[in-house]
């Protein structure tokens, strides 16, 4: 059982357990959804009891939380932040704007579908999603990590050309360095 190649080794079990119970969040709060993050983190809903903790820089974070719409200008910064994060990394799209554009669906300078540009592991629907919904989204991500399905970063590596093509359609003046793994 232990030596079986298909079964998980005990190291993997420990690593998976700690990965899903210790999520450092980088909240990218340009959209209006950022107003729902403080109640999620502070004493009313207290996401820290699930090991979810805010972090200040992309280098330290595991989870990028995109709260709301992204203008083509802010998308550039999101891509930089996402590529600076260290593997394994996850993305949560937060609110209707990241799913189909939401109330900005016919806007001239916002993107419609976030997963065309960076790989999204979990979407949280709503405008705005309440803190209960946000915590449900976090727990959904923890379940995905447990099942080994939260492999957005893997997908990004494999389909980098496709993602780059989509990103360059929106960002006309592409002056960013290449992705350093």
């Amino acid at each position, binding site marked *: 059982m232990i030596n079986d190649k298909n079964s998980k080794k005990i190291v993997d079990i*420990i*690593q998976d*357990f*700690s*990965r899903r*119970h*210790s999520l*450092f969040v980088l909240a990218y709060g340009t959209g209006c959804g950022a107003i729902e993050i403080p109640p999620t983190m*502070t*004493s009313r809903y*207290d996401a*820290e*009891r699930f*090991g979810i*903790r*805010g*972090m*200040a*820089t*992309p*280098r*330290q974070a*595991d989870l990028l939380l995109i709260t709301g719409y992204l203008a083509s200008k802010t998308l550039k910064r999101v891509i930089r932040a996402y590529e*600076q*994060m*260290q*593997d*394994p990394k996850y993305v949560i799209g937060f609110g209707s704007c990241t799913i189909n554009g939401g109330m900005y669906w016919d806007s001239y300078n916002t993107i419609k579908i976030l997963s065309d540009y960076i790989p999204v592991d979990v979407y949280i629907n709503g405008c705005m999603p309440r803190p209960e919904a946000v915590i449900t989204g976090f727990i959904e991500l923890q379940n995905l990590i447990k099942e080994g399905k939260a492999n957005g970063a893997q997908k990004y590596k494999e389909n980098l050309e496709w993602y780059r093509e989509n990103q360059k359609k929106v960002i006309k003046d592409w002056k960013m360095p290449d992705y*350093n*793994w």
Partner: protein
Amino acid sequence: MNIWITILGFLATVFLAFVVGVFYGGFVRKITARVQNRVGPPVYQNFLDIVKLYSKKTAINHGWMQHLGPAFAITASVTSLMFIPILNGTGWFPWFENLNFKGDLIFLLYMMVFGSLGMALGAGQTGNPNSAIGVSRGLSQMVGYEIPWVLALVALMLQTKTTSLTGLLDYQVSNGTWMMFESPFAFVAAVLAMLGMFHYAPFDVPFAPAELSSGPASEFGGKYLALMMSSGSIFSFVKLVLIVDVFMGGASNLIMLVVKTFALYMIPVLYGIVSPRYRTEQSIRYFWGWPTFIGILGVIYAVFVR
């Protein structure tokens, strides 16, 4: 004595310091959460964080010095740990004697700064402006709290006529007293300096997540951050045991050690939970004010009164 058994004692000491330090970190998060009327993470949360950071698959570095910075930090923590008697008497582990020599208190004063300087070099290479500001703030603050800290230890050295940690412990054990009663001004100065050494609010000036995005650590991710967290846990244990050894008569068994260090740790933690953050110059002015004055009083007390 067989060298391998001594090395086993070293490893056991580092393991003890790591486990106790990480659990203290978890307790601090739990206590902070309870004060803020939250449930808080489980006590073992810091273990999960460290294991997760060690099992990150990539870790970017910008050059050799950044690679060495966290290594310097953990080297300084472990080296300081080796010079501090965990329990009074021969040692806590059956075959372990630490590396004490005459004058090791002065050596420790230098060694405890080494980790911060190494981190400063490492953070300097990242090129992140937040790191540079954090480093300059941290070193400025260190200039602040080192003065009352050194004054307190100098008062003790003058009073007991010894510069060795085991000498201080023997003095306290043979006289049946604690230095915090023998030399109260020095103790107060050392505790006020300790508030700065632990970098909890209001003295978390170098890290300041809201304005500096965690300061020197801002470019360190993955395994580097894990190394820094382990080093910080060991180093907080080192500082606590040092102050317990110097001022509170050491401890005769591990339970007593945990009780004393935890009681001492609650001073900066509880003061920090209810405090906002100082600005840099306010922090330095604080340390150069009453703590330094009380430290000078301690030296005068040691020279003229005792």
